[in-house]
């Protein structure tokens, strides 16, 4: 019985709110540290790529942004599943707090992909399987945000958004497979943004940048979820006490 109680305690907004608030500075600081280390390795130390020249350095943000955009969608789907299965309040809030960051990561991935493509492929946009899938992922994020924004009732928004996320997560492999199939049939470009044979410093730089993006996403999502909590729980005692305490 006590175990159960503890689990619910951490899942309750009243306890998670201060916890998230306390953790944000740490995640932000770790993100900055990883970012500086990654930039130092990637931008200053890593050697020139023999095929792509200095232009390859774009992958130090392109790849982490792409990873994060996919990872955040998976995390949102995870929270959606938890929320639908156990009817927890926190999960829906987490999914909604993550969505804008995920969409921005997808946008960054497309933006840097275009800037990489211009010198390497000669055009800003190629209907390459990965870029196309990333674009569709951005559409899925936009659809999720539009749906949750259109529903006034927070509980319904969480659940409807959750179903959309689960449908999306089932569809992503199918979409990726179909786009890849379509791409090979139409003789798409065969140059890859990431190459298998990378110098060790390049790989480390990329991993450090990925950690930086990861920690950044957690910090921003926590900050956003705190605001969502205040808004949603404004009629509860703990929010009232918090707001009244702030006033003095």
């Amino acid at each position: 019985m006590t175990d159960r109680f503890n689990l619910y305690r951490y899942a309750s907004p009243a306890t998670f709110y201060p916890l998230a608030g306390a953790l944000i500075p740490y995640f932000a600081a770790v993100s900055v540290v990883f970012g500086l280390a990654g930039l130092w390795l990637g931008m200053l130390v890593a050697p020139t790529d023999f095929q792509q020249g200095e232009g390859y350095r774009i992958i130090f943000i392109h790849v982490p942004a792409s990873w994060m955009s996919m990872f955040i969608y998976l995390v949102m789907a995870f929270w959606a599943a938890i929320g639908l299965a156990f009817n927890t309040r926190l999960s829906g809030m987490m999914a909604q707090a993550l969505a804008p960051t995920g969409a921005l990561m997808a946008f960054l991935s497309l933006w840097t992909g275009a800037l990489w493509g211009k010198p390497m492929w000669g055009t800003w946009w190629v209907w390459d399987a990965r870029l196309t899938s990333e674009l569709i992922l951005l559409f899925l994020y936009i659809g999720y945000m539009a749906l949750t924004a259109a529903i006034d009732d927070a509980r319904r928004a969480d659940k409807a958004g959750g179903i959309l996320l689960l449908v999306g997560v089932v569809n992503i492999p199918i979409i990726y497979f179909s786009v890849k199939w379509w791409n090979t049939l139409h003789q798409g470009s065969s140059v890859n943004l990431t190459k298998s044979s990378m110098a060790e410093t390049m790989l480390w730089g990329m991993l450090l940048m990925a950690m930086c993006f990861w920690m950044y996403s957690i910090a921003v999502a926590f900050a956003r979820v705190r605001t969502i909590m205040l808004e949603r729980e404004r009629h509860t005692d703990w929010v009232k006490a918090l707001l009244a305490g702030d006033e003095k």
Partner: protein
Amino acid sequence: MLKIILAVVGRDLKLAMRRQADIVSALFFFVIVVSLFPLGIGPEPDLLRKLAPGVLWVAALLATMLSLPRLFADDHRDGTLEQLALAPHPLGLVVTGKVIAHWLVSGLPLALIAPVLGVQFDLSGDALLVLTFAILIGTPALSGIGAIGAALTLGLRGGGVLLSLLVLPLYIPVLIFGAGAVDATVTGLGGEGHLSLLGALTFASLGFAPWASAAALKIALE
């Protein structure tokens, strides 16, 4: 189980027959959109033949979108939907019936008129056959996936636009394999692989989508 599905199909078809104008306007929307493309692109037969599969399929997706907001809205307004949700049989079966009925009045007419439009694009006999068959077996998936979107946006303001925002990205695999089948036939590669994948998509979405829609409907009705 089959009885419930058939009962829902029969009922929805009867209701649709009372509003034949809706079916006809969706069909004409399809015809007009497809006919606009040659006017915008130019009449060269080679170019049109190349574009035909994509144009016809995109127009079919859009035409399907037109009737989707109505899928649950009418039943929701007069309270039938709540009755169905409270009934002892699973809501997923009811949705399956509604999806089948939706396909019969929206997907099937598109497939029947598609060869006529294909002729406008100078498609060969083989390609016309594959086109018709692809639309025939691909549109049930559109109705199924669309039902999820229709259930999620039930009763929301701006539901129609929102619905297309949610559903169109999920239609992409159907578009790729559907248009790909015709394209492969035109270029002489044979569209069997595409068609079997399209059939697999339809089976999967008909098995999966009604239950997801039913869950979404229950949330909307809470």
